C-alpha cells in the first residue's frame, strides 16, 4: 500500500474524477434498473439505487451519488442526501429482503444535507430508522466506503455484515474542516485534524471499524479506474461468497454482534 498522509488521502478521496457510483455500477454490475422515490414525498437524486445483476446474481445496489459535472452535482445536491434519500434506500433494502437479494451499498458523501426542508421532514428520524432496520435485515449486506464517508449520513447506509474501504477512502464522524471548527473554532486547522481523527482505511482496519481494505492503483483510483474496479470486484465476490453460506438469522445476529462490540467496555461479568 502507498504511504500517503491522512490529509493527502482526504484530497484523493475528494478528487473530482474519482470513480463514483455510476462508474462502479457500469463496471461491476449488468442490467441495472434504477428505482426512484421514497413512496412518501419525493425522489432524492443524492442516492442512486436499484436492482442489477452481479456475476449473474440479482442484487440490490444503493449508493450516494456525487456528480462529475457542475450540472450533475447540483442535481444530486453534491451527494448530500435528504431524508427522502435514506427512506428510498430503506425501501429498496426491505424489498431486497423480500426477494432474498444481497445488498451492496457504496458510500461517498460529505454528510447528510443540513437544510431546512431536510430537518422539517425528519433527517434525524430517517437516519435512525435506517440504522435500526439495517441491523435486523436477514440478507447479506456489504458496504463499501469509496470516497468520503462522513457522519450519520454515511453510517445510514453502513450497518453491514462487511464494511470495506477503498485504500484512499476516509470514514469519519464529520469532515476534517467541521471537526476543526467544532473543536478549535478554526476550520483552517483541518490538516491537523486529519492527523488526529483516525479516518484512513489502515487506521480504521486497526480499530476494527472496517473489515477489509481494497487496494488502489498508485496515486488513487482515478488514475487507473479499471485496475481499481478489478480489485473491488475481487473483494466483493469473496465477501459475498462467504456471506451466502450463512442463514438469514445468522446474518442478522452476526451484524448485530459486529456493531455491539464497538466501543464496548472491557468485559466484566454482571
Amino acid at each position, binding site marked *: 500500500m502507498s504511504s500517503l498522509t491522512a490529509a493527502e488521502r482526504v484530497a484523493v478521496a475528494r478528487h473530482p474524477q474519482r470513480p463514483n457510483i455510476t462508474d462502479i455500477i457500469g463496471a461491476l454490475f449488468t442490467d441495472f434498473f434504477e428505482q426512484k422515490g421514497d413512496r412518501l414525498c419525493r425522489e432524492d437524486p443524492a442516492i442512486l439505487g436499484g436492482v442489477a445483476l452481479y456475476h449473474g446474481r440479482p442484487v440490490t445496489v444503493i449508493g450516494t451519488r456525487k456528480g462529475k459535472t457542475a450540472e450533475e452535482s447540483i442535481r444530486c445536491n453534491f451527494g448530500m442526501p435528504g431524508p427522502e434519500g435514506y427512506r428510498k434506500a430503506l425501501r429498496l433494502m426491505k424489498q431486497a429482503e423480500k426477494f432474498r437479494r444481497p445488498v451492496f451499498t457504496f458510500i461517498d458523501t460529505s454528510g*447528510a*444535507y*443540513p*437544510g*431546512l426542508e*431536510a*430537518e*422539517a*421532514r*425528519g*433527517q*434525524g*428520524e430517517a*437516519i*435512525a*430508522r435506517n*440504522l*435500526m*432496520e439495517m*441491523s*435486523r435485515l436477514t440478507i447479506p449486506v456489504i458496504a463499501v466506503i469509496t470516497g468520503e464517508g462522513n*457522519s*450519520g449520513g454515511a*453510517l*445510514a447506509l*453502513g*450497518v453491514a455484515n462487511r464494511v470495506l474501504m477503498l485504500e484512499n477512502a476516509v*470514514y*469519519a*464522524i*464529520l469532515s476534517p474542516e467541521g*471537526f476543526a471548527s*467544532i*473543536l478549535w473554532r478554526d476550520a483552517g486547522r483541518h490538516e491537523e485534524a486529519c492527523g*488526529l*481523527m*483516525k*479516518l484512513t482505511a489502515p487506521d*480504521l482496519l486497526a*480499530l476494527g*471499524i472496517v473489515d477489509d481494505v481494497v487496494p488502489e492503483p498508485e496515486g488513487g483510483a482515478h488514475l487507473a479506474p479499471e485496475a481499481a474496479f478489478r480489485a473491488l470486484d475481487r473483494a466483493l465476490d469473496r465477501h459475498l461468497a462467504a456471506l451466502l453460506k450463512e442463514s438469514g438469522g445468522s446474518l442478522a445476529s452476526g*451484524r*448485530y454482534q459486529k*456493531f*455491539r462490540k*464497538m*466501543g*464496548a*467496555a472491557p468485559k466484566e461479568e454482571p
Partner: protein
Amino acid sequence: MSGIFAKRRARLLAMKAIRDNYVPGDQLVACPKCGGESQRKDVAGNLSVCPLCGYHFPIGAYYRLSTILDPGSFRELNGKLPAADPLSFPGYREKQRLAQRKTGLTEAAVTATGTIGGRKCVTGVLDSRFLMGSMSAAVGEKITLAIEYAAKNKLPLILFSASGGARMQEGILSLMQMAKTSAALARFSDKGLLYISVLTDPTTGGVTASFASLGDIILAEPGALIGFAGPRVIQQTIGETLPEGFQRAEYQEEHGFVDAVVPRGELRETLERLLRLHEKGGRA
C-alpha cells in the same frame, strides 16, 4: 423491598439530586427566555421551570431521576462504567476529569432501574453539563446495556435525551454508538416491549439520528431544540434566517415527529399513565 435500604437509596438519590440543582444565579435567578427574575427557591421548587414564563432550565441526570422515580426505588445500573479515550486524543483525559469534577458524574449518561407509580422500568438520562451530553463510547455502552437489561427482564424503557451530538474526541467510535444503540433497540422492540423517548433541550446530532428518534412514544419538553443539524450549520448552509420556533419541540410536534409536548410538571404523571396503558403489552 427492605425498608431501610429503600430509605437509604432515597436519601442517596436526594443528595445527588441536590448537587444537580444548578440553576445559575445567587438568591435571584434570571430567566434566559423572559429575562424576569425569580427567587432561587421558587425556581428550584418548580422543577427548575421559570415561574414567570414556563422556560425549562436544563437539569442534571440525578435530579431528573428524582423527579420521575418513586422515592427509594432508584438503583443505578453500571454506575462505575469508566470514561474511555479510544483514540488517545490529546488533552481529552483532562477534559473528562474537569467535567467529572464539575458534575460529579463519571460520564454524560446515568442509567437506572426504578418504579413509577409502582411500575418497574429501566431509565436512562443524558446530562448536558457533561461535555454537552455528547455521545461517547461510554454513553453508547451505558445506553445499550440499559436497553439489553430491559429486554432481558421484560421491562419498559424510558430514555431522556439531552445532547449536542457526537463526542469529537472519540471520532468514529462516537459515530458507531449510533448503530449500536439503534440495533439494540431493534432487538428490544422485537420482544414487544415499550420504549418511551423523552426529548429535552437540546437533542441534536447523533443522538437525534439514533435512539432518541426510535421511541414507540416520543415526548418532548416545551421549547426543547430537537434536530439533526444544528441551527447554526443550517443557517450557514442555506444562507437564510431560520423561521421563529424552527426545530423547537412544538415545531417537531407539528411536523409529525413528537407524540406530545409535555411540561416537566406533568411528565411523571404522563409516564405513569403510559406505563399503565401498556401494562399487558409485553409478549413472552
